[in-house]
């Protein structure tokens, strides 16, 4: 066993002595830091006025939202509706000109911002014009029109969760591309959603999940550059001859290479993803862990908190990244040229993005959803389109993890066979 870990040590040494590894990891860190910064600078904060810095405005917005942190119960919803009514009935809160009534920032901060999550949900659930709905991603607040909350009275607060439930049932039932089994699974999940929701500031989790797919893609690109030479470089440098003619060249050496690739992929994913989560939480605040995923997308049926959703996202990304790393090693053992390996890995990552497949053709649609860059997207992990295998319905997260695990285990013997049986000459 000692010799195995000695070989692993040398495999790591080989990897870290390559400039491409160091450059890839450095760029990965830069991308993570860049998205930390972008998460702050790309947002329009209500407190952002002439003399206030972006970071200060972010803190002030957060303070206002956090002032109403707590359970999103009937009292809270009533308050949200009441405050909205007070606001819309006072023209002082608006700038009125020939183009219409424009809500002043101060008024928004005072009457809406503390209840923002509830207001967003109401405006989605009670919306009659479906064109205004955000169905699958992150919702957009549109201040320039009469919104559903403007039409509610405090009595409507009683039916807040019943209305959400009703809207969700109507929405799921209306999805033509879902099978009956999928719909039942959604209703089962919906029945497990804990109410009342919790209200808090959740930007740390919001931005983590929003940028997860970009970070996952960056991780996989870095892994492709670091791992692609694991076998291919031996052919390229002509060291394959001395490795394969050595005692452990056709056994422990191959497993050591696989072990190195696997542990490197997992280590990079775990470190980067947790660093990204923790950095987002330290920038935007650690609050919001126990908020329901529905506060991001009210039409989601997943019974999860934002912390759980983020951890599941991390899990899925780790497994997908691991499988991607193993496929890269297969290319590396098979294609022999590091350039071809990188090309094949990049095709695996980017080619599916070139095709827009409609969910109407479910099999093809789901086939595209399991490609690494798609499987790590928040909207796909928590998609309404579930995976049905042999009559059982699985959430995408479960399916991706099982698929990546089985795929990884099945690919490993091929890698071993390919390198072991490589013929010199």
């Amino acid at each position, binding site marked *: 066993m000692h*010799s195995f870990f000695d070989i692993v040590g040398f495999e790591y040494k080989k990897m870290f*002595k390559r400039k491409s590894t160091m450059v890839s990891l450095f760029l990965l860190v830069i991308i993570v830091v860049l998205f930390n910064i972008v998460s702050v600078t790309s947002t329009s904060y209500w407190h952002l006025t002439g003399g206030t810095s972006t970071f200060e405005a972010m803190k002030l917005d957060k303070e206002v939202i956090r002032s109403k942190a707590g359970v999103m119960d009937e009292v809270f919803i009533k308050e949200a509706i009441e405050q909205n009514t007070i606001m819309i009935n006072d023209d002082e809160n608006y700038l009125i000109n020939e183009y219409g009534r424009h809500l002043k920032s101060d008024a928004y901060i005072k009457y809406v911002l503390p209840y923002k999550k509830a207001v967003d949900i109401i405006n989605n659930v009670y919306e009659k014009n479906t064109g205004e709905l955000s169905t699958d991603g992150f919702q957009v607040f549109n201040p320039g029109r009469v919104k559903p909350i403007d039409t509610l009275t405090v009595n409507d607060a009683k039916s807040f969760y019943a209305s959400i439930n009703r809207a969700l049932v109507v929405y799921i039932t209306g999805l033509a591309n879902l099978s009956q089994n999928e719909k039942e699974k959604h209703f089962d999940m919906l029945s497990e959603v804990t109410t009342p929701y919790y209200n808090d500031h959740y930007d740390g989790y919001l931005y983590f999940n929003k940028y997860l797919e970009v970070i996952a893609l960056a991780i996989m690109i870095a892994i492709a550059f670091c791992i692609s030479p694991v076998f291919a470089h031996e052919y390229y*440098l002509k060291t394959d*001859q*001395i490795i*394969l003619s050595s005692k452990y*060249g*056709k056994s*422990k050496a191959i497993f050591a290479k696989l072990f190195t690739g696997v542990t490197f992929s997992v280590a990079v994913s775990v470190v980067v993803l947790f660093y990204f989560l923790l950095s987002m939480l330290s920038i935007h605040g650690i609050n919001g862990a126990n908020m329901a995923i529905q506060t991001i997308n009210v039409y989601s049926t997943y019974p999860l908190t934002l912390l759980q959703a983020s951890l599941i996202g991390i899990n899925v990304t780790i497994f997908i990244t691991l499988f991607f790393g193993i496929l890269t090693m297969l290319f590396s053992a098979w294609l022999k040229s590091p350039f071809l390996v990188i090309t094949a890995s990049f095709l695996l990552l980017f080619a599916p993005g070139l095709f827009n497949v409609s969910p109407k053709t479910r099999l093809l649609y789901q086939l595209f959803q399991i490609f690494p860059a798609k499987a790590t997207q928040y909207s796909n992990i928590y998609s309404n389109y579930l995976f049905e295998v042999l009559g059982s319905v699985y959430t995408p997260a479960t399916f991706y993890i099982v698929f990546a695990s089985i795929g990884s285990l099945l690919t490993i013997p091929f890698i071993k066979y390919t390198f072991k049986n490589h*013929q010199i000459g």
Partner: protein
Amino acid sequence: MELTIDRLTKQYQNKIAVDRISLTLTRGVYGLLGANGAGKTTLMRMMCGILRPTSGEVKFNGIDVNHEDYRDVLGYLPQYFGYYPEFTAMEFLCYMASLKGLPKQRAKEKSTELLELVSLFDMAKRKIKTFSGGMKQRLGIAQAMLNNPKILILDEPTAGLDPKERVRFRNLISQLGIDRIVLLSTHIVTDIENIAETILIMKDGQLIHKGSLEDIIKIIEGKVFECSVDSKTAKKLSNLYPIINLREGKDKTFIRFVCDENPCENAISVRATLEDLYLYYFSEVGENA
């Protein structure tokens, strides 16, 4: 200690690289001679288990070439020796030692010992990418000996070595041949002449001769001639016989060639060497004309 090669054949689509070679090697140094494309490297690769033969088998003391126990007693220096440019000599040897199953401490000791043996001890901490061709070749020789192999296969081991290094290397190989099987191929005939107890000559994938230097040279004994002739005669002889040496003088041309019978009056029969034999087999008649 016996390495047996039984009807070993490697056939590519349109070419038979190695054609039914059967051999039994015991302790000692074996020199493999042959022109480019004769099949030497292919034969050696099959003996190292890195090229699958079309048919036939290779066994050491009954252990098949594909078995881990076979590779455990094998040391191999390939013709084109690959290395890791960013590794130091010591790191490289320790890595190879771990692949050969040496424990960490033993790997360090053995690597140090071999670096001294190939005169690279002072360069132990230098990156291999800074090494000259000769230094890389010496490092390659060191890695082949890490596991104290019973079978040592060296494909063109003296390529890139300067004359002094070559002499040192030849002496080393002679010592190693005492208690193991050493098979080396080279184009440098004098290397084989000096150290190989048994010489194997390959041509077109077949083993055409096997024996000691004396046995092999007997084939052309009395057939090597030297003479000084005018350039016209020299040209005529070049077109008829394999030329071993041709040197233009002021009035005459000195010529050494192989011929079954004395072709001209002033030619004298001289003692044959291995180089004469090599050129007899592998030079094209008329190529020096």
